[in-house]
C-alpha cells in the first residue's frame, strides 16, 4: 500500500512538491521562531553570570541592563568617580568592575575598564575570560580585543588602532594622535565581549585629553609620552558590575545604593532585570508564535485542498483499485498514507530548511549583536511541535480520505466517468 501511495504521489509530483514545500516552510518558520526565542534568552542569560548587582545612573532597570551588559543603546548619565570609590569601600562588596562606554573603533564599541574585568567578569557557566593570544593591557595605550573584532578586522597582537569618539560606524572625528596597540585577543565567548575593544580607564581619559567641549583642540595635540606623564584618574564611569562577598546581602546593598544621597544611582539584579525584559518581549514572542501556528495551519489546509482537488481526477484510479480487490477501507488508508507521506516529507524538508536558516541567522546575530545561536538537535519542545504537526497532517488527510472512501463506496467498480 505504501508503495502504491508513493508511486501515485510520484506521478503527481508537481502538486506533491508544492504541498510538501508549504508544510516545510511553515515547519521551518515555527522551529526557527522557537529556536531564536530560546537561544536569545540563553545567550542573554549567559552574558552575566556571577554578577550580583549592576549599578548605573538612575534610569530604567531594563535600559541599564541593556546598555551596560549587552551594549545595546546608550547611557543617559554617568557615575562620578567619587561614588565609585565610595561603593568600592563598602564592606559587603567583594569586587567592582567599572565600565566606561562611549567610544568606538570601526563600529565596535570601546570599553574602558580595569584589570578586575579579567579577574572577576564571568560568562556562561561562571567561566572566566581567557586569551587566545597576547595578554592583558598593561600600558595606557594597550587594548584587548574580542574574538569577533579580531576576526572581522583581521587584527593581530601588536597592531596599532585608532579609536573614534561616538559609537556610530562612520565616526566624524578620530583620536588619531593616540594610536592604541593591541596587547591581547580574547577567546570567543558567545557574548557581547566578543565585539568589544577593552582599554584601561586611563586609556579612555588619554583619548580625550585634547578634547574640550566635544571638539578637538587645534594644534599638534599631545604626544603619547606627555600623556603618560599626566594624571589620568578617571572622573566618571558609565556603569559598575558588582560582586558581593555574600549573596545574602544583595537586597540590602541594592537598597543602600538606590537611596545613595550624593548621586542618584540605580542598582539592579541582572536576573530580575532580565525577567522584566522577557516580560516586555513576551507579547511580541507570543504574536510571532501565533503567526507561525497560523502559517502551519495554512500549510495543512493547502495539503487538504491538494488532496481533495485530486480526488475527482483520481476516480478512475480508485475504480481500478476497487476492481482488483481494494476495499473502500483500503482506499481510505491509501489517502491517509499519502497525506502522512506528504506531512513527513514536509517535516523533514522543514527541519533541513530550519537548520539552513539557523546557520545563516546565527552568523548575522553573532556579527551584529554577539549573540550566539548554536545548531543543536531538536529538543523536547521541537519534537512536541513536530509531533503535533504530524498528527495535524494526519487529521487533515482524514477528510479527503473519508471523501474518497464515500466516493469509492458509491462508485463501486464503475468505469464510467
Amino acid at each position: 500500500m505504501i508503495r502504491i501511495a508513493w508511486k501515485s504521489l510520484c506521478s503527481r509530483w508537481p502538486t506533491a512538491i508544492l504541498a510538501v514545500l508549504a508544510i516545510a516552510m511553515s515547519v521551518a518558520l515555527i522551529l526557527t521562531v522557537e529556536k531564536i526565542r530560546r537561544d536569545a534568552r540563553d545567550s542573554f542569560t549567559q552574558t552575566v553570570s556571577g554578577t550580583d548587582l549592576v549599578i548605573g545612573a538612575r534610569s530604567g532597570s531594563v535600559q541599564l541592563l541593556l546598555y551596560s551588559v549587552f551594549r545595546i543603546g546608550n547611557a543617559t548619565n554617568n557615575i562620578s568617580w567619587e561614588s565609585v570609590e565610595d561603593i568600592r569601600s563598602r564592606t559587603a562588596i567583594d569586587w567592582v568592575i567599572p565600565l566606561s562606554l562611549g567610544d568606538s573603533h570601526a563600529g565596535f564599541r570601546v570599553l574602558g575598564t580595569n584589570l578586575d574585568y579579567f579577574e572577576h567578569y564571568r560568562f556562561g557557566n561562571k567561566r572566566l575570560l581567557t586569551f587566545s593570544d597576547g595578554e592583558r593591557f598593561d600600558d595606557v595605550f594597550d587594548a584587548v580585543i574580542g574574538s569577533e573584532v579580531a576576526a572581522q578586522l583581521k587584527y593581530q597582537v601588536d597592531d596599532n588602532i585608532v579609536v573614534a569618539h561616538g559609537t556610530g560606524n562612520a565616526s566624524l572625528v578620530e583620536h588619531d594622535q593616540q594610536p592604541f596597540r593591541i596587547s591581547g585577543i580574547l577567546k570567543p565567548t558567545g557574548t557581547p565581549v566578543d565585539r568589544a575593544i577593552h582599554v584601561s580607564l586611563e586609556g579612555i581619559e588619554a583619548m580625550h585629553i585634547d578634547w574640550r567641549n566635544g571638539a578637538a583642540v587645534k594644534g599638534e595635540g599631545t604626544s603619547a609620552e606627555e600623556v603618560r606623564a599626566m594624571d589620568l584618574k578617571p572622573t566618571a564611569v558609565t556603569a559598575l558590575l558588582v560582586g558581593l562577598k555574600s549573596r545574602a546581602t544583595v537586597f540590602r546593598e541594592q537598597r543602600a545604593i538606590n537611596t545613595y544621597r550624593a548621586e542618584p544611582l540605580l542598582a539592579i539584579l541582572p536576573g530580575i532585570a532580565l525577567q522584566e525584559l522577557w516580560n516586555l518581549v513576551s507579547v511580541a514572542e507570543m504574536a510571532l508564535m501565533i503567526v507561525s501556528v497560523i502559517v502551519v495551519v495554512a500549510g495543512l489546509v493547502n495539503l487538504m485542498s491538494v488532496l481533495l482537488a485530486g480526488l475527482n481526477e483520481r476516480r478512475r484510479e480508485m475504480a481500478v483499485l476497487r476492481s482488483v480487490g481494494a476495499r473502500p477501507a483500503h482506499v481510505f488508508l491509501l489517502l491517509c498514507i499519502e497525506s502522512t507521506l506528504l506531512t513527513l516529507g514536509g517535516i523533514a524538508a522543514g527541519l533541513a530548511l530550519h537548520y539552513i536558516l539557523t546557520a545563516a541567522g546565527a552568523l548575522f546575530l553573532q556579527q551584529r549583536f554577539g549573540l550566539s545561536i548554536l545548531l543543536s538537535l531538536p529538543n523536547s519542545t521541537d519534537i512536541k511541535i513536530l509531533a503535533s504537526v504530524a498528527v495535524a497532517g494526519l487529521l487533515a488527510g482524514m477528510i479527503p480520505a473519508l471523501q474518497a472512501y464515500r466516493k469509492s463506496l458509491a462508485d463501486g467498480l464503475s468505469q464510467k466517468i
Partner: protein
Amino acid sequence: MSNDNQPIVQLTDVHYSWNRNTLPVLSIHEFALDRAEHVFLQGPSGSGKTTLLSLIAAVLSPQQGTIVIDGQPLAELRSSERDQFRVDRIGLVFQQFNLLPFLSVADNVQLSCRFSADRKARACENGLSLDQETDRLLDAMQLSAAQFRNRPTSHLSVGQQQRVAVARALIGRPPLIIADEPTSSLDSDSRQAFLDLLFSELELAGSTLLFVSHDAALASSFDRRIDLRDINQSVSATGPDGELR
C-alpha cells in the same frame, strides 16, 4: 466449497431495479454458467448487460432471487466479505482504463495478489515465484516480459494495455473471468488475436469466461452465445437508458 458438478454461476428468479418504485431492469428466471465454459453475452445498449455483470460480480445486490457464485450464495456475504470474495474468485477486464498509469506493467499484473492471499497462493502453486508467474503470463500475452515488465503502463498502446489487463485478470487462476467489452477499443484484426491469446491461457487456468460484447462477429469462437434479450423478461430494460447500457 467448490464442487465441480455445480455451475460456477447460478442465478435463480433474480429481479433488480434501480429503486423501489420503478419496474425491474433485470428479471432473470434462470441463468447458469458451467465450469470452464466460455460464454458470449450480447445485447443492445440498455438491455442490462452491465447490471447483470455487476450482480454476478457482487457489486450490486438483487431485490429478489438468489445468486450463487462458485458455490457461495452472495446474499450470505457482508459487504467487506463480498469485496474479498470478488478478488479471490473473479478476474475483471473492462473496456478501457484497466491499469494504474503510475505503476509498472508487472506491478499492475500483481495488483490483485496484493489484496488476495488466495490469488497469490494459486499464482505460485506450480512452483513459480510471483514474479516468474507474472513474466510467464506477460510472455503468454505476447508482451515480452524482459522488455515490458518494468515499463510504466502509460507508455503502452491500448491493445497492449488490454493484454496486461487480461494477464492481471488471469493471475492466480480465478475460477471466473468477467470481461466487459474488452475488445471494443481494439481494431478488428487485433480483436481476434486478443481472443486467441485469452482462450489459450483460459485453457491452462481452467477458468470460466463471461464475455460481453456488441460485436457478434466474435461469437463463433465461444462455446455458447447468449442474447440477454432472450433471458431477461423485464420490459423496462429495453428503454434507451444510456447509463445502464
